[in-house]
Structure formats: C-alpha cells, structure tokens
C-alpha cells in the first residue's frame, strides 16, 4: 500500500511540474489562464492526496482553497478582467520559447540535483515532493521574469505559490499550512484587485492624474 501511496503522490507532484512547463509556452492570455486553472486543480488533488496519506484532515481545507479559489474563482475573475481590458489576445514573451523551455529544464534539473542530494535522510515521499515543489517554484519565477504583462506576472506568482503549497503539504506535520494558504489567497486577491484598479486608473482617470502632476510641478 505504501508503494501505491507513493506512486500517486509522485504522479500528482510530477504532473504539477509538467503543467508548469505548459504554462511556460502559452502565447495567449486566455490559454495561460486555462492552464493555470488546470495547475491549481492538479495541486488540489495533490494536496488532498497528501491529506489522505498523512491522515491530516486540516489539509483538506488547503485543498479546498486551491480548488475553489485558485482553480475556479481567480481564473474566472481574470478572464472577465482581460476581456474588459481588451487584452485577451495579447501576450509578450521576452525570450524565445525554445530558450525559455531550455532554461526551465535547467531549473528543474538544478532543483532535483540540489534537493535530492540534500534531503537524503528524509523519506522518499518528502524528498521528491520538495524537489518537485522547488521546480514548480522556480518555473513560476521564470514565468514572472519572461513576461511583461501584469496579468501573466500574477499567473507566474500564483504558480510559484502553488509550488510553496506543495512544499508545505509535503513536509509532514508542518504547522500553519492552512494559515499560509489563506494568507496567500488574501495576498493574491489584493494583487488581482490592484491590477484591476491600476488599469482603470490608467484608462479612465487620466485627467485626474494630470491634475495631480501639475500640483507636484512636473513628473519627478
């Protein structure tokens, strides 16, 4: 049974890394959001499986947050937002896709080498989980670095955070995991609202901002 537990956890964590790769090369915003929803869904499965394996019922809460908030609420809200802002077809990648994928492979290799070596004393499940989690974290960072659009940067950040949740649930018996995921959800909600307000300011309130600039006597 231990073997089966391990295999499923491994499959789900590995799936998360795979979906991170899918995120890397999406060149339309709406597709990016769909893949992100898929990633959050896989995460919620992975967390729920950890809750079952570790017999830690509070992790089901984290899984539920991942499912309801990150896989459903946030992607829906962002979809509506990009349509309203008229940027749902846009995407800008700084480096070429091939190069980005190569960098992604490098990052995953790096995290596997570093963490599998360092956590030799841990049990296999925690080892692989934490190594996959670091991969997801670094891939999320790569997304943030290669994109300029605010929405795709947020997707990158949320993907980093998915890696963190995977790491926290993989560390058996870690306290405060649910609190961390709630705190991050609030943070993300803040960011999303922020983008929305930011864009609106840029588009509709230009007059207001010019008035403020005059009061300051120039821009700088």
């Amino acid at each position, binding site marked *: 049974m231990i073997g089966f537990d391990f295999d499923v956890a491994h499959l789900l964590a590995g799936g998360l890394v795979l979906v991170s790769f899918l995120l890397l090369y999406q060149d339309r915003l709406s597709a990016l959001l769909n893949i992100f929803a898929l990633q959050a869904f896989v995460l919620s499965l992975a967390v729920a499986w950890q809750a079952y394996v570790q017999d830690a019922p509070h992790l089901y809460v984290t899984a539920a947050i991942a499912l309801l908030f990150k896989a459903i609420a946030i992607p829906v809200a962002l979809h509506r937002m990009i349509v309203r802002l008229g940027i749902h077809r846009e995407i800008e990648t700084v480096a070429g896709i091939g190069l980005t994928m190569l960098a992604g492979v490098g990052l995953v290799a790096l995290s596997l080498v570093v963490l599998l070596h360092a956590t030799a004393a841990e049990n296999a499940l925690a080892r692989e989980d934490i190594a996959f989690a670091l991969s997801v974290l670094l891939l999320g*960072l790569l997304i943030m670095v290669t994109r300029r659009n605010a929405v795709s940067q947020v997707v990158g950040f949320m993907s*980093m955070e998915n890696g*963190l949740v995977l*790491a926290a649930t993989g560390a058996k018996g870690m306290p405060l995991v649910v609190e*961390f995921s709630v705190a991050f959800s609030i943070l993300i909600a803040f960011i999303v609202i922020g983008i929305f307000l930011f864009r609106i300011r840029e588009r509709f309130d230009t007059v207001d*901002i010019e008035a*403020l600039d005059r009061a300051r006597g120039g*821009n*700088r």
Partner: protein
Amino acid sequence: MTLVPFDPVLAVLAIPAATAALLVLVPGYRLSAGLNVAGSLLTFLVTLLLFIQRSPPNSYVLIDDLNIVFIALNAFVGFTTSVFSASYIGHELEIGRLTPTYLRFYHAMYQVMMFGMNLALVANNIGLMWVAIEIATLATVLMVGIYRTHEALEAAWKYFILASVGIAFALFGTILVYMAARPVMGEGYQGMIWTMLVAHVAQFDPELLNIAFIFLLLGYGTKVGLAPLHAWLPDAHAEGPTPISAVLSGLLLNVALYAILRFKLLLARNPHALSPGPLMVTLGLVSVLFAAFMLYRRHDIKRLFAYSSIEHMGIIVFAFGMGGALANFAGLLQMTMHSLTKSAIFFAVGHIAQVKGTQRISEIRGLTVSHPLLGWALVLGVMAIAGLPPLGIFMSEFLVVSSTFARAPVLAVLLVIALLVAFGALLMRLQGLAFGEPVGSVAPVRASYVPLFGHLAIVLVAGIYLPPVLVVWFQHVAQMLG
C-alpha cells in the same frame, strides 16, 4: 518580581493594533494625526518597560538582548516619524495631493505597519515572523501607492512583485528549516519555535539547513535591499509620502535584517553547516560598491538618499557577515546611527520637497540661504551619512574598516574605495543643494524641527561620547551574535 502590572510585550503589539482600529473610525485629520502620535509615543514608552521587565520566552514571543535593541529603535523612530508625519501630511492635504479619506487610510496603515514590524521583532515562531514581515510589507506597499499618480502606482507595483518573490523564497526557506528540524524534533509546532530550534540545531541535517539559509537570505535580503535584489527600493522611496520613505529606510530594512540575523545565529550553532559570513560579506560588499557608483547619476533627491540606504545596509550586512565581537559591535552601531540619520535626512527632504514643489536635484539650490534651518540640517545630515567625523557614522564605519583590515585587507580596501566614492557623490550633490544662489520658492516653511534636530543631536553626541551602558549592552549583543 513583576514591576509592571501587565505584560509589556503584549502591550507593544496591542497598542499599534488598537490605534489602527481606532484610526479607521476617526474622521478629521488633526485628531487622527494626534492619535497617531499618541499611539506611537505610548508604544515607545512601553518598549522602555521591556528593559526592566521581560517575560520568559513562550511559543509565540521572545524577548532577548538582541531584539530589544531593534524594538526600542523601531518604536523611537516610529514615534518621531509620526510627529514629522503630522506636519508633512497637513501640507499634503492643503495642496490637495491627498484627500481626507486617503489620510484616514494612511494613518491606519501607519499603525498596521508598526504592528507588523513589532510582531516580527518579538516573534519566537519563524512562521509567525514571516507572516508579520508580510503584514508590514503589504502596509507599506499600499502607502507607497497612495498618491495614485502613474509613477506611484508603478513603484507600488514593482515593490509588490519583487516583495512577493521575496516572500515566496523566504517561506520556502522556512519550510526547509522545518524539514531539517523534523527528524530531530518531531512533527508539529516545536519545529518552528526559534528558541527550541537553537537548542537542537546541532543535530539537524546541515545540507538542508544550508539550502534553507540561502533561500532565507535571498528572500529577506530582497527586503533589506541588497544589491541584485534592490530594484524596488529607490522607486518605493521616491514615489511614496516622505514619512514612509523615512520608516522604510530607518525601520523596515532593519526588520528584514533582523530576520536574517536570527537565521544566521541558527546556522552558527550547527558545526557542519556552512558559515553564513562569506555570503553576507559578498552581498554586502556588492551592495556598497554598486550603490556608491549609482549615487553619481541620481537626479531625484529622494532617490539619491534611497541609494545611500542601499549602501548603508550593505555596510551593515558586511559587518555582520565579518562577525566577531568588534565587527558585530560596529554593525549594530552603524545600524542605529543609520536609522536615526537617514530618517532625519528624510524629514528635512520632505519639507524641502514640499516648499520647492519638486524633487529634482537640479531645481533645488541654495537652501542654506533661502531656508537656513532646513538647509543646515540637511548639511549636517549629509555630513553624518557620508561618514565625516565627529558624527556617529564615522565611528561605526571606522570600526568596520579597522576590524576588517586586521582580518581581510583586500576586502577592507574595496570597502574603503566604495565609501570614498559614495562620500564624493554625496558631497558633490550637497554642494549644489545647500549653497549658491537660491532657486525656486523661498516661502517660509512650517517644519517640525524637533524630531529632525533630535535625531541629529543623538547622532552627534553618539559620535563623541557613547554612554557606557549602551557600549556594554552592544558588546554583549555582539558577543551573542558570534
């Protein structure tokens, strides 16, 4: 044994939290500014009680000789800045840059930020410390963007994104520390309590601890403003309200530094873990060198001093990285002096930018002629921050350099070069700002001189005479930092 009928630690947290809640409800700028000052003063007075009565550490809070220095400094500068803020914000309201609604929000956020910083400093749980630093950061992000100009929003966004990456790295490091602790200490809360971690850290897996420290150093280092991760800092300083620039430079950077020091102490107790010193020395030195050269190309007065903050945080991290009793002592002294001097400079700069209506260095000239008190205060402040004797920073920088010369002459030479470059840049800018024919508005300014000259007086006195009590205390903490 108890001299005070209540637990001062709880009061240090409860007062800012309660004041914040009250400020949300109170309308009117005068009342809320007054409440902000009163709340900050009360917090500062209560911190002084910590020196006479401290409760034993429990699973949430810890008071020891190290963090008491940070807390007292934090509360003091928090209080003086609230006094400055009262006069600064009044002017912003008059010229219509801020509306009463935003002011109410601003004052509440000020206390939320103080609460977050105090919680981070007293936290004994590394998870709690992480959450607290996030609270403080979020509050400052909101305040940086408060003017709603394009630049302010952009600065807030940049700060937000970079701070979020820092957040993520720091949390990953925290998780790794827990994973390292688990095989030794078992599952559950004890694996995150700092005092218990320190007691058992010698048996942790050193490799896991090493990786954890690197993540923590990068994560919290982002907030300290160390060189490759500093990009948010100048924007956040330049575009937000000046009182926020003062507390960012004077306090929030210190709080993040404190988190790094705590984890450095943890690593120092594990004989097989890497020594954190060289990493910190490298990051510190790179920051000093980078910032020193960047100082030459600044055109915005607040950005200029923001880069000077990067330089000084670099010196402090360098000093703590070198380690040993003398360098740690110098680092502590440098940190205290920098907080006081830099916030004083921002007080002066805030009033100057208000009266001149600009932050461009080229449009500000001859301050000592048009506004003698403000102008000379700025001269004094810049002389102090540049490290001229007999002011306090000269002494701490001298100690850093001399203790480094004895152990690593090459590093000391690099550090001295950077210090001289920064010195030149600051004096060159000061020349134009303070002397010559006045340019721009010469209208009289209603400044709050008490916090400004109060800070400068402390810095001056500390450069000439350090009270023995303080010396003994700092020496003791320096020993503790190893």
